[in-house]
């Protein structure tokens, strides 16, 4: 049979040049593409209204805003429950109204973290010896995920946490590989940042410290003579102190902060707004099913992980983890890479101990809650998958093809549990009715609104009113005065009637002044009371306390 063939030849050195060019410019390319993507997606979710769907996103933005605006602005407004870094990073922009109300101030942090994640996954894989394809594939696995794309467009803290943790793990890997102490310091620094972002970082700190010790032991081998034992001990101790001093600095600062501001170093853990208190309420209501149930805790978290990262990707990640573990890479490097798995252990442990709550629709009730916690393992999955694709050369296109196929359907079916939780799960709070009322009736009228920020931050945010219109727990003398004599300070009161968990109701409902209010409207999340007009003459309507400490 005649062999009609057209041929295109390319010199290998040309290919090599192209590859070198890509390699040289890979990071710029990633930054460029991810930045464009990040901006477009922020606009997309802002315009369709989903960007602020999470109740927590609005609360984060309010915390940042209270630092710069309100009846008692200042750094103390960072509060005690949520760790401060996400809100501190908002401060440079949150004073601009559009940045506050569009959520951009918080989203900006997530967006920068998102782009950084692309870079760090690329570098992580490079450090593991993966080729260009594997590195880019790892980045794609991370990016081609609707949950990530959504969360990076919001003021939630997941992306910042992921970025600080992953960068910390990356430098830990470099330290394990190159033995340069500077990398250990860098790792400690980023892990410290993660400890100031969310409590997941605290676990990473402990986990990484353990890995540092294990790494030193592996370096010396496990067959150590008695004479060497002291030497190994000293080295381990030295490295641990060096690492922990910086990595644990944020935690120490947080204890100090709580001591100085709230007079109790453990206020964040045992205070009235702590997660523990909230979990206690859930437990009392019989909703904390995972507490002391390791099987359910593990199952629920695995479901969250699979729903967030997509099942096929998780399977690839698992194969990648196995491939990495059985690869010829030095054991201490592999051990360091395992730091990426910290969120898995943390979340299961937190659920088991009852410090965290997670609802998966169809398994634990008929709603979603906090399901986004499952996304925390996506960086690990991306890295392991990239490694797998690099190592199994003959199967790489099979894996890439199947990944592309399943991801296509993830997008075509709009598969995002993070969005579902925000739209219809327990993480959403549609307060438009009550905030709409405030916006219509309080905007152009003088007087303060008394409200508990701990219970109704979403209402404060959604009302679109300036923060200085509200008297809340963080306003010092205003709060104390208004909860004692509401009729002198609050023209409106927003609270859940007959619910002592609402601090306003708890304090105000027993006061004499409360009798002067009329219930003007009732909504699912709160009721609105307005001071009877005949008492308006005695009402303070201006910030008369001046600058408070």
């Amino acid at each position, binding site marked *: 049979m005649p062999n009609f063939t057209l041929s295109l*030849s390319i010199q290998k050195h040309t290919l090599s040049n192209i590859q070198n060019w890509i390699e040289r410019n890979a990071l710029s390319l990633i930054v460029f593409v991810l930045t464009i993507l990040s901006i477009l997606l922020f606009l997309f979710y802002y315009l369709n209204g989903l960007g602020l769907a999470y109740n927590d996103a609005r609360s984060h933005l309010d915390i940042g805003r209270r630092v710069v605006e309100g009846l008692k602005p200042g750094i103390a407004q960072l509060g005690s429950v949520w760790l401060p870094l996400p809100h501190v990073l908002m401060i440079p922009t949150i004073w601009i109204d559009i940045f506050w109300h569009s959520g951009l101030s918080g989203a900006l942090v997530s967006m920068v973290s998102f782009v950084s994640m692309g870079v760090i996954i690329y570098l992580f894989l490079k450090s593991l010896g993966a080729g260009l394809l594997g590195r880019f594939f790892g980045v794609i696995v991370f990016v081609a995920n609707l949950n990530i794309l959504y969360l990076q467009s919001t003021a939630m803290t997941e992306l910042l946490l992921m970025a600080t943790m992953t960068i910390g793990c990356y430098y830990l890997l470099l330290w394990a590989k190159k033995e340069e102490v500077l990398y250990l310091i860098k790792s400690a620094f980023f892990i410290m940042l993660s400890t100031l972002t969310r409590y997941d970082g605290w676990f990473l700190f402990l986990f990484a410290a353990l890995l540092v010790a294990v790494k030193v032991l592996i370096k010396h081998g496990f067959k150590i003579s008695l004479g060497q034992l002291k030497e190994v001990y000293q080295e381990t101790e030295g490295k641990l102190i060096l690492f922990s001093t910086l990595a644990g600095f944020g935690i120490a600062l947080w204890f100090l902060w709580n001591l100085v501001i709230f007079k109790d170093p453990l206020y964040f853990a045992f205070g009235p707004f702590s997660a523990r208190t909230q979990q206690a309420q859930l437990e009392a209501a019989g909703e904390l099913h995972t507490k002391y149930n390791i099987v359910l805790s593990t199952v629920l978290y695995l*479901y969250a992980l699979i729903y967030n990262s997509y099942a096929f990707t998780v399977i690839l990640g698992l194969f990648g983890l196995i491939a990495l573990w059985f690869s010829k890479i030095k054991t201490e490097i592999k051990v360091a890479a395992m730091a990426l798995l910290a969120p898995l252990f943390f979340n299961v442990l937190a659920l088991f101990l009852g410090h965290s709550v997670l609802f998966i629709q169809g398994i634990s009730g008929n709603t979603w809650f906090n399901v986004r916690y499952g996304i925390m393992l996506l960086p690990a999955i991306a890295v392991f998958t990239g490694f797998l694709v690099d190592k199994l050369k003959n*199967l790489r296109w099979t894996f890439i093809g199947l990944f592309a196929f399943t991801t296509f359907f993830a997008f075509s079916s709009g598969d995002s549990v993070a969005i579902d939780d925000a739209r219809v799960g327990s993480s959403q709070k549609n307060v438009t009715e009550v905030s709409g009322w405030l916006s219509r009736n309080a905007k152009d009228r003088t007087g303060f609104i008394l409200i508990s920020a701990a219970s109704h931050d979403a209402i404060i945010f959604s009302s679109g009113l300036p923060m200085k219109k509200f008297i809340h727990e963080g306003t010092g003398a205003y709060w104390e005065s208004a909860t004692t004599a509401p009729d002198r300070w609050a023209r409106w009161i927003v609270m859940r009637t007959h619910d002592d968990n609402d601090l306003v109701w708890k304090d105000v409902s027993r006061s004499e002044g409360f009798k002067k209010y009329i219930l003007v409207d009732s909504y699912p999340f709160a009721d609105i009371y307005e001071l009877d007009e005949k008492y308006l003459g005695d009402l303070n309507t201006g910030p008369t306390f001046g600058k408070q400490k």
Partner: protein
Amino acid sequence: MKIIKKIFKPVFFILFLLFTVSILALSIRGVYGNPTTETLNSLYFKDDGPLELSPEKGRFALIYSLIEDKSFHFSLPVAKTVTPDLGYQDGKYVSLFDPGVSIIAAPGYIIGKYFNVSQFGSFAVIALFALANALLIMGVAKKLGANGIASSLAGLVFLFGTPAFAYAVTLYQHHVTVFLMLLSIFLLVKYKGILPLFFVWILVVGSLIADYPNFFLFLPIGIYALGRVFPIEDIDNRVKLNIKILGLISFITILIPVSLFLWVHKVSYGDPLQLAGTVRSVKDFDVDGSPLFREDLLRREGKVLEAETLNKGKTPIGFFKTRNFIKGLYLHLVSDERGILVFTPVLLLSLIGIYYSYVKIPKVTALLLALIGMNIAVYSMWGDPWGGWAFGSRYLIPSYALLSIFVAFTLTKFRGRGLVLILFLVLAAYSISVSTLGALTSNKIPPKVEAVALEPISGKKEHYTYLRNWEFLSNNGSKSFVFQTFGKDYVTARQYFFMVVGSIIIVMTGQIIYLYLTARKDPPSRKATEGERI
């Protein structure tokens, strides 16, 4: 010795054929008599008979219409047998199933009709495809370097040791799909160069007529075959991308199945691009014979469908959701409802074969794994991974076939290891027993959720595993044509079952012993790696 081997080979092949044909013939479901418009809707043919579920009912009704009414549209009496999987398009009742299988099985109907067994004849066509599949598994495995006996065992494992058996004796699309898939692989493995592509494109695109999801299932074959049109060569200091002109010309053959596809859909649904599954479905009939749709039934119950739901048209990709993946995967692989682990654990041995195959013939292994991965992915994302009321995971039948090829590799590698062969025999005996149970009785196994819901109505334990088949068999039930027509006067259904299962296990045991004995004489050190040269 060589002469004996030369003589033995064709004899073995003929014996193999005779054996498989006999077992299939003993198992094909059916009843005597040609169904008519009056009898088609009777219990004799439907629930108590071979047309027990909507897939075979719908497909057989289409054959009936094609032959008896010379139409792709159903007359009202025929349409009534097909509900609830009945479509309505342009004032005509149409099938909701892809028409390919009905067209393929029509010759069987015609021949069967001559002997007053038109339904049996139609089903026998699928059995022939199943037989061809077993032979193709043998062929592909051998071509890839597996031992001949091990390859024939792999063929038997697929045919009788997986739920594929239960679908070889009725009118489903799966064996046709597997045939097109295996034939494509066989052509690519056996023949080098461009020539096989002329046929492969026909098979790949033609598979769409049998079952629409084949579009996804056959993608890896299409991509693999494309590699021959655009081969890349690594020569010294250059990389050369070749474009085979003849390869480009081979795409012309796509026109054959494409034309057929468009024509069939034009005459069926009035629109060449209208897919069967996206047609509006009829749920019942009014007293005057006019169709009733979902919204009509809800309206009668006093419920109103929201406009959004009403306007939501069916789209082909809308059936697949990644959110279903983990549930589907569990169901297909490990659940007692449909899982491989419960229905055909012998395939677990393929995992060892995958490793050895990957080491020897990585490229072909990658293709086969891509096909398996695609099959599992597609049907794990599918809204109904159970496949309705079904025996085992019918959607994974293509994977069973491909995994069987890897079983051949496992057997080849360990053919001198008695313990492994005994393990294989034990797993195979279990898998064959389960699969034969399904084949000889019924595919009407509900998903667990439906079985549980049925219990208060029926007032008895409703099984959702193969125990339901055992219950059926224990009540002297078998839907085998031979048993129902001739056998039931002489043996009970259970005795019939043991005879069939026993025959298969005895034959396989003989093959295993032969494999073991030859391995001891001839240590396993085959170098045949045809795949490497592809």
